[in-house]
């Protein structure tokens, strides 16, 4: 190290200091080896954040290798700010999902808002204009005011940031379970569009090129946020909380437009947003990716607060900041764009060829670390894993002792009232889901669809994941999430293209949690392979645990599909009376892990529904072809709540009207609860016009027996959903019947009522 650093007060690195930085003794030994000397405090801080779980993926990286990441459609796989796939017409869709769980628990509004800000930056640093946001949320049950407060804060934070910057929030999912009471999940997804050959990357190439800092001034916000996100919560965490980061969507909008202008004028070598671990991670990653070094002068960094130390400047997580490397001679043009948009910008350093991250404070060198050591050289662990002892107990569900459903009429009403199944309108009404005038299928159908102006094409996207399935069988749960996401896309008329994921789990240092993680990753990887949808980006969030209680394993899948012709866009609701209702796929005895079992029997137990990958593939292929042939009026997949919930939703989710249905179910062997409320995957309810019925049945027959199909009944214009159940072993047929208006009311009002009830109780 340079002589100048001698000027710093010598630091006694004590075991306590190491521990406070979240580093283990072995990790500290590795630091000594990388540096060949003792680090100073600033360097220790840099290692601390960069080697945190959040930034280094040290527990997960070896396992993530299992994901398939290649395919002819892949333009950019994992490793950049976001993944990208080819969508034709010279365009690429750029997308990624990210978690903001811990910050949202501490300050729900700002936590969720800055989560949206972060994922947007990941997309527009790639040069893509963001055109859609989605979110996946998990909260505790709404009978607690604390959970209500979290839900309201998170939704308004997402709404504020997305609405203000003008990117529509077009879909997502929410489920409720008390396991999330002290550890809610906030995962946000963003997709943008860029010309395929103009994709920007986070590179710092070309010795001597200037490194520029643009955006918000640096304050003491969120210092050690990344370390915090890599730690479990307990009641003492409140105290060591760093300054909460506050979002500024207006500034982000300016950054967005400026970045797209840089691209337009071709001014940059590379660009990277400052997310977790701020200036440190952005500079290290850019240098490490490019095999270069970076020299920064913290004295030149625009600051909001006086007397900030290099340590603080390097580790600050102030929002709405970017680091970029300008093409030689184009620095002034970059600054001119910044001036136009009123953004602060400063030259803070240069690219070097010595592979070092060198930090100056004026003339003094305050840190000097091989960039590779911090980024690629981060520790990697193959942590021990073992199935939890309770796993068998969880999976045991003796159907012989479980009474079959007694009052199916009431059971359906109760399921529609479950906030996990009920309408999420209260949520998405707060999101501007129309800005951009591309949203052709608004929230409320299986997947959201945006058109791509001027191409005649559209993109469908969805986020899915059933954490209860993952708890009961993480391998199956992972696969089922992929299958459901793909099914939702297919129901909308899209061909699935690629996946992004957000893996939310507990403490990886616990073998049972690590086992859940490994199994889920394997399940996702195998399903992605089977469906031929590569993973192009993603995010891992571990240590989702409060006071020793872990969340359910919660991998969330974000999937994007392409609709080649606007005519193929399909929605889930019935279209006209007289149409025939068909079930593609078959119902099996899948009661374990269902919403029915939870709501009616208060049990979260059993084996989750069994995913037969070949059957799933065959069903999806079949429905997509039927849609492309123009024979399908509506398509809706069966998921939580089972067949009756699906049929009810087909009746009442049309934006401006409702329909009735007359249904007959013939099932020889199944229990009634499994038939009506079981959650067998690989099932899609479609409706077809009278004129097309013959074509459809013929087509499916010609496919052979691979795709089970049954005609269930017809759409009516009456206010009744009537279901006749005929079973050979019962002498009598069962008649079930509901007023569609009643069903709709339950489903529409549930969330609002539960929120109001707690407010006035």
């Amino acid at each position, binding site marked *: 190290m340079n002589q100048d650093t001698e000027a710093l007060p010598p630091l006694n690195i004590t075991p306590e200091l190491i521990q406070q930085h979240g580093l283990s003794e072995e990790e500290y030994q590795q630091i000594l080896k990388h540096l060949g000397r003792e680090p100073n405090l600033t360097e220790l801080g840099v290692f601390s954040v960069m080697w945190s779980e959040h930034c280094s993926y040290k527990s997960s990286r070896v396992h993530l290798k299992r994901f398939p990441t290649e395919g002819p459609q892949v333009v950019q796989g994992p490793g950049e700010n976001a993944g990208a796939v080819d969508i034709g017409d010279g365009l690429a869709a750029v997308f990624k999902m990210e978690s903001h769980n811990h910050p949202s628990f501490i300050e729900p509004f700002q936590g969720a808002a800055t989560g949206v800000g972060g994922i947007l930056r990941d997309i527009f640093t790639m040069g893509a204009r963001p055109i859609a946001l989605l979110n996946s949320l998990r909260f505790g049950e709404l009978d607690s005011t604390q959970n209500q407060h979290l839900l309201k804060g998170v939704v308004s934070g997402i709404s504020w940031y997305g609405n*203000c910057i*003008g990117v529509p929030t077009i879909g997502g999912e929410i489920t409720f379970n008390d396991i999330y009471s002290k550890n809610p999940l906030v995962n946000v997804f963003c997709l943008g569009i860029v010309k395929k050959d103009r994709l920007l990357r986070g590179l710092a190439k070309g010795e001597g090129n200037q490194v520029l800092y643009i955006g918000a001034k640096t304050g003491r916000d969120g210092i050690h946020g990344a370390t915090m996100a890599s730690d479990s919560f307990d009641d003492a965490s409140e105290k060591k909380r760093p300054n909460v980061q506050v979002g500024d969507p*207006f500034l982000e*909008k*300016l950054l967005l437009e400026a970045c797209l202008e840089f691209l337009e004028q071709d001014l940059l070598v590379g660009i990277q947003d400052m997310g977790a671990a701020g200036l440190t991670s952005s500079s290290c990653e850019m240098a490490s990716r490019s095999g270069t070094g970076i020299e920064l002068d913290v004295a030149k960094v625009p600051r909001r607060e006086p007397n900030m130390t290099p340590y603080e400047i390097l580790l600050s997580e102030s929002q709405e900041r970017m680091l970029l490397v300008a093409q030689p001679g184009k620095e002034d043009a970059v600054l001119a764009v910044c001036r136009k948009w009123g953004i602060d910008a400063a030259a803070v350093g240069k690219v070097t060829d010595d592979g070092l991250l060198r930090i100056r404070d004026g003339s003094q060198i305050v840190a000097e670390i091989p960039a590779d050591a911090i980024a690629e050289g981060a520790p990697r662990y193959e942590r021990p894993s073992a199935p939890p002892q309770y796993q068998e107990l969880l999976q045991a569900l003796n159907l012989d002792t479980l009474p079959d459903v007694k009052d199916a009429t009431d059971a359906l009403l109760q399921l529609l009232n479950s906030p996990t199944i009920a309408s999420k309108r209260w949520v998405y009404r707060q*999101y501007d*889901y129309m*800005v951009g005038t591309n949203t052709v299928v608004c929230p409320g159908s299986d997947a959201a669809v945006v058109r791509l*102006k001027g191409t005649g094409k559209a993109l469908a996207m969805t986020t899915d994941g059933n954490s209860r399935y993952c708890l009961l069988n993480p391998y199956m749960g992972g696969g089922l999430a992929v299958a459901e996401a793909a099914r939702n896309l297919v129901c909308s008329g899209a061909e699935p293209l690629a996946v992004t994921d957000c893996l939310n789990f507990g403490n990886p240092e616990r073998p049972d949690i690590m086992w859940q993680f490994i199994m889920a990753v394997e399940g996702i990887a195998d399903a992605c392979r089977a469906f031929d949808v590569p993973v192009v980006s993603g995010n891992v969030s571990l240590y989702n645990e409060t006071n020793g209680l872990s969340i359910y394993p919660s991998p969330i899948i974000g999937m994007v599909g392409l609709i080649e012709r606007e005519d193929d866009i399909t929605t889930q609701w019935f279209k006209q009376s007289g149409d025939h209702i068909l079930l593609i796929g078959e119902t099996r005895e899948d009661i374990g892990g269902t919403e029915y079992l939870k709501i009616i029997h208060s049990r979260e137990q059993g084996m989750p529904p069994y995913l037969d990958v070949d059957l799933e593939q065959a069903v999806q292929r079949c429905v997509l072809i039927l849609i492309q042939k123009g024979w399908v009026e509506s398509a809706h997949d069966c998921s939580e709540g089972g067949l009756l919930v699906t049929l009810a939703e087909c009746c009442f989710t049309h934006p401006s009207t409702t329909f009735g249905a007359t249904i007959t179910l013939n099932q020889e062997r199944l229990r009634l609860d499994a038939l009506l409320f079981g959650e067998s995957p690989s099932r899609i309810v479609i409706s077809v016009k009278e004129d097309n019925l013959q074509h459809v049945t013929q087509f499916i027959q010609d496919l052979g027996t691979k795709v089970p199909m049954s005609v269930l009944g017809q759409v009516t214009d009456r206010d009744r959903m009537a279901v006749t159940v005929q079973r050979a072993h019962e002498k009598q047929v069962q008649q079930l019947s509901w007023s569609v208006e009643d069903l709709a009311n339950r489903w529409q009002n549930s969330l609002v009522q539960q929120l109001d009830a707690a407010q006035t109780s």
Partner: protein
Amino acid sequence: MNIGIIVFPGSNCDRDCAHVVSEVMGHSAHLIWHQEPAIQDMDAVILPGGFSYGDYLRTGSIARFSPIMEAVFEFVNRGGLVLGICNGFQILLEAGLLPGAMLRNKALSFICEDTYIRIENAETPFTNSCEAGQVIKLPIAHAEGNYYTDPVTLSALQANAQVVFRYCDQDGNATTISNPNGSLDDIAGIRNAKGNVLGLMPHPERCAEAILSNQDGHSIFKSMVSSLMGKSPLSV
């Protein structure tokens, strides 16, 4: 026809308006940066929706001082047509080009959904292809659309047929439920006394094409275009 669309730094419906003007209506859309000092050869000007300065302080309050606003004043004085949509409406209020002010929605939260709107005055350059009393469906997307003005101004608005749009239900009846934001007198849009400036909270540009499942917004743009026929563009 040349339609200018003012781009404030936080505008986000500017490109949506331009799309309707050019791709749907077949006219020329010109994005005008808010720092420009002048408006050149425009038949009409649109102030689009968005969050012009993050809507910090009050919606539209900071944008009102952008350099282009001087030109907008002059454009209005010379009789040019100006349409303010959502945030554009809020800016026109802050600028005093239309009377009144916006309060937060009565339920406080942001609301994005379709609303029914009754055409109260079909004799304006913005509604001449509609009929008085006609009910159209337009989406709203705002947190501050709760229109307020003092009683004297309100009477004047009513007396001069300046209330152009009111929130109503599907059958055209204005009820408490059909008013989404608590707006005074169910007001969804007003014009100035002279009749050349119109502000409305709903977004006609979001429903002017078949693929968006609603084309009711088309009538507003069509009215503007037909009332501009034969007039010459303005430069200020």
